[in-house]
């Protein structure tokens, strides 16, 4: 039996675990990236590789110690470096004497046969094609339900009466969804989750500011790599809207062009007409859209040396000025400490709150006159 692992990217492991197990593989669940993960990754990764690369290498080294023999991950067609990461990970692991297999999924639109072969090589339970499709649909359903839970947590956390309730409910909802295996069970678990979120005592009077979160996909989706920025912001009374979810990203990569992607590309057109890989153009586009939707601010998070995000960051000040939306950028690396980040966030949130107050004061002043 293959012992597989895959990158730990937020809660998505819950859905991947189900799919892999039902295809007849033993899953070594990737641990939540922590200090040990990063230390291992930093030790063996190239110095200027970005944070996700180091986190993933650390994850693989941790799971290989538990007997993992196959890595399942996604590739890419550039020009972002991430497209090469899987193969370099494998080369480094080989060099360290770990003979691991790599199953790296490329976009099925470009390489349909390759995609099919790779799915089959994971299919140790000898499922029929139709049951694989059914399984993938179920995994998809689960992923969507998980994303739904996360969105609710973003909305409710800033309004909760007792600090920490939302995070607890969110964890509980993840567990329910983890146990759910059929469509009906997933639906029931999702409904339970929604109910639990709605039951959280909330302060409807509280003035909540709204911030858009943009940037590179891995650090956006993995709370351990962004030092739980969403939770931290939530506790400061900030409602976060994240620009990327795994389900949304997958749809963008599988289908032709979704409406959302089109609007984002269009919004970025005046600033960055070229596709530069990663999520550089999306970062610009989303910031423009958040500006038009009158958000209070935007926070960009990206790994240190991330090429597309550096390009985006160079252009963002102009976007920020023209659309009158404050932007704060964090480049994360293995040295980033949580205390420093919290201080910067507090200062940013204070500024946003004051700006909002000033606007409302001047508005009331004009109406009174």
């Amino acid at each position, binding site marked *: 039996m293959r012992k597989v692992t895959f990158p730990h990217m937020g809660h998505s492991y819950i859905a991947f675990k189900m799919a892999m197990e039902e295809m007849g593989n033993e899953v070594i669940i990737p641990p939540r990236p922590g200090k040990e993960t990063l230390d291992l990754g930093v030790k063996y990764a*190239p*110095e*200027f*590789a*970005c944070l996700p690369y180091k986190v993933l290498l650390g994850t693989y080294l941790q799971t290989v110690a538990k007997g993992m023999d196959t890595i399942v991950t996604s*590739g890419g*067609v*550039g*020009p*972002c*470096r991430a*497209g*090469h990461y899987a*193969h*370099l990970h494998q*080369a*480094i692991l080989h*060099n360290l004497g770990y003979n691991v297999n790599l199953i790296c999924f490329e976009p099925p639109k470009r390489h349909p046969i390759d995609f099919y072969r790779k799915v089959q090589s994971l299919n140790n339970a000898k499922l029929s094609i139709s049951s694989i499709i059914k399984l993938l649909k179920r995994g998809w359903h689960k992923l969507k339900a998980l994303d739904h839970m996360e969105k609710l947590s973003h909305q409710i956390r800033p309004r909760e009466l007792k600090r920490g309730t939302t995070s607890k409910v969110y964890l509980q909802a993840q567990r329910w969804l983890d146990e759910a295996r059929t469509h009906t069970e997933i639906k029931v678990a999702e409904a339970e989750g929604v109910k639990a979120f709605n039951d959280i005592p909330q302060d409807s009077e509280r003035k909540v500011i709204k911030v858009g979160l943009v940037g590179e996909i891995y650090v956006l989706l993995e709370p351990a790599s962004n030092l739980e920025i969403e939770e931290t912001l939530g506790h400061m009374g900030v409602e976060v809207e994240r620009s990327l979810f795994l389900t949304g990203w997958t749809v963008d990569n599988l289908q032709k062009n979704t409406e959302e992607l089109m609007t984002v590309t269009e919004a970025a057109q005046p*600033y*960055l*007409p*070229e*596709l*530069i*890989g*990663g999520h*550089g153009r999306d970062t610009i586009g989303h910031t423009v859209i958040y500006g038009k939707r009158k958000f209070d601010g935007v926070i960009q998070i990206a790994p*240190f*040396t*991330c*090429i*597309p995000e*550096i*390009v985006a*960051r*160079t*252009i963002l*000040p*102009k*976007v920020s000025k023209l659309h009158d939306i404050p932007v704060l950028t964090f*480049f994360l690396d293995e040295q980033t400490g949580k205390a420093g980040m919290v201080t910067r966030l507090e200062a940013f949130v204070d500024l946003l709150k004051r700006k909002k107050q000033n606007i409302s004061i001047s508005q009331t002043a004009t109406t009174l006159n």
Partner: protein
Amino acid sequence: MTIKVGIPKTLFYYNYYPMIETFFDELGVEVVTSDSTSRKVIDAGVREALADACVPIKVFFGHVQTIKDKVDYLFIPRVVCLNKKTIYCPKFLALSDMIKHSLDGLPEIIDNRIDVRGNHFAVWKTFYHIGKRFSNSKCKIFKAYLKAKGNLSKYQDLVKEGYLPSVAMTILKNNNSKQKMSHNYSLRFAVLGYPYIVYDNYVSVNLLTKLNHLGVETVTLEQLPDTWVNKANTMLPKDMFWTFSDKVLRSSYHFFEHGGVDGIIHLTAFGCGPDSMVDKYMELKSKQYPDIPFMSVTIDEHSGEAGLATRLEAFVDMVKRKKEADVNA
């Protein structure tokens, strides 16, 4: 007064300048290049560019700043793909956008896009669009384009013969007979890296000259026959996406497998994204070929002469001793 077009003396300069210069000359447009990289240029770049950007981008920002007030146009084309296979680094693809949205007081930017994938005569079409700004005669633009192309291949031939870009450009310009290059070198190193680092004497802290003084002949990427580079098989499951990186990696594999040099130096810039991968692959490969010493040198905006000189001397000494030992054995 003639129209002036400014060309920053970095990035693509070392590969394509003779072509661009001839093209604009033929159209009666004056070409102005920025000065060679200096402390002043780098400081200007560091001030304006993002702190997290790589050194070459900071240098580019510096060059643009020193030249922007002296010209009517800035030439920063969007070069996407020139060989139907590999593209350029994402920062190259968005060069003009980064400049446009972060510097003030810029002249008009010529940022036509060149992508030869699925587009016949794409290079000519781009040159035609550029030329239209300065001339109404398609025939004149075409002639200029042909002459520019001819000049580029002459230049590339000169570089292949072993001349450095700066020397090759002077020879091309003055039509002087080539000086005979006769030196007695005891060692031969491959210095692999991107042209805008290797040939920029200030950025590379005179690495090539330093090696020559130590009695080492240097071979650079542009001096290798294309067939070698293209034939070299990296045996990687995926080719590098980026043109320069792909060439550097392939040529390093060629040298590791076929020899022909006493040592390999990988010259890279601080914060270079693609190089983080290229360098690791080279390092892994070098472990399989312990006969050829390999060193990777990272330069940044504060690289000092002394530090680099010491490292080079140590490396050269080591290679020399190893060679003597091999001869005696």
